[in-house]
C-alpha cells in the first residue's frame, strides 16, 4: 500500500515539476513564468520529502519559494516592458538551444541507465535536522562559514548595485 502511494506521489510531483519547468521556459506572460516556477519549486520540495530529506524540503519552501520567488516577482514588477517585444530568441537560436538541451538530456540519461549504481533500499524515517546540524557544525564548518561570507557579500553587493544614486 505504501509502495503504491510512494509511486503515485513520485509521478504526481514529478509531473508537476516537469510541467512547472515547461511553463517557466515557454510561457508568454512574465507573471505566468514566475508562477510556473513556484509550481516547479514546490514540487521539488515534495520530492525531497519522498527522498527522506525533510529539513531540505522545508528550507526549499522557506528560502526558494518564499524568498527567492518574492525577489523575482519584485524584479519582474520593477522592470516593466512593452508587451510586443519578442519573448524568445530567433528561431535558429531556439533550435540550437533545443538541440543542446536534448543532447545533454540524452547523455545524462545514458549515463544514469548504464551506471552500476549500488543502492541502499532502506529509507530513513527519522527527522534529519539534528544530524544535519551536527554535520554542518563539525565536518562542514568551513563551507558553512564561507557560505555566510558569500551571503554577506551578496547582500552588500545587491544593496550597492540597486541603489538609486
Amino acid at each position, binding site marked *: 500500500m505504501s*509502495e503504491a502511494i510512494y*509511486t503515485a506521489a*513520485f*509521478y504526481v510531483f*514529478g509531473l508537476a515539476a*516537469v510541467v512547472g*519547468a515547461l511553463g*517557466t*521556459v515557454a510561457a508568454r506572460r*512574465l507573471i505566468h*513564468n514566475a508562477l510556473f*516556477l513556484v509550481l*516547479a519549486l514546490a514540487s521539488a520540495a515534495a520530492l*525531497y520529502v519522498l*527522498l*527522506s*530529506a525533510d529539513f*531540505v524540503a522545508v528550507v526549499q519552501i522557506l*528560502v*526558494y519559494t518564499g524568498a*527567492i520567488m518574492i*525577489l*523575482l516577482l519584485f*524584479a*519582474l514588477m*520593477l*522592470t516593466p*516592458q512593452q508587451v510586443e*517585444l519578442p*519573448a*524568445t*530568441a530567433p528561431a535558429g*537560436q531556439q533550435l540550437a*538551444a*533545443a538541440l*543542446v*538541451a536534448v543532447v545533454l*538530456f540524452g547523455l*545524462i*540519461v545514458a549515463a*544514469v*541507465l548504464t551506471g552500476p*549504481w*549500488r*543502492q*541502499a533500499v532502506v529509507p530513513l524515517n527519522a527527522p*534529519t535536522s539534528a*544530524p*544535519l546540524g551536527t*554535520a554542518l557544525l*563539525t565536518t*562542514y564548518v568551513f563551507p558553512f562559514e564561507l557560505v555566510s561570507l*558569500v*551571503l554577506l557579500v*551578496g*547582500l552588500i*553587493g*545587491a544593496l550597492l*548595485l*540597486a541603489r538609486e544614486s
Partner: protein
Amino acid sequence: MPGLAHFLILGAALFCLGTFGALARRNAVVVLMSIELMLNGLNITFVAFNRYLAPSFGPAASAWAGQVFALFIIAVAAAEAALGLAIVIAVYRLRHTVQVDQIDLMRG
C-alpha cells in the same frame, strides 16, 4: 517503485529544460528563473544520491554530504539571485530594457 534512476532522470529533465530556457529566452529575469530551475534539478540529483548511495544514515559525515550540498546550493542560489536581480534592475534604470539582445554596449 521509483528508484535512483527515476529521480536522476527527473533532475536531468529539470536541468535540461532550464538550459533551454537560459539559452532561448530574451528577458533577463526569465533567464535568471531558468538558472534557478537548473539549480533545482541539481538539488534533486544531490538529494537522490544522498538517499540511495549514502553508506548509512548514521553519524558518518559522508552520509549527509548530499543534503548538506543541497543546502549550500540553496544558500548560494539565494545570493546569486539577489545579485543578478540587482544587476538587472541597475541595467533597467540605465537602458530601460531587460531584453538581453538590446544590452549590447560592450559588443565589438
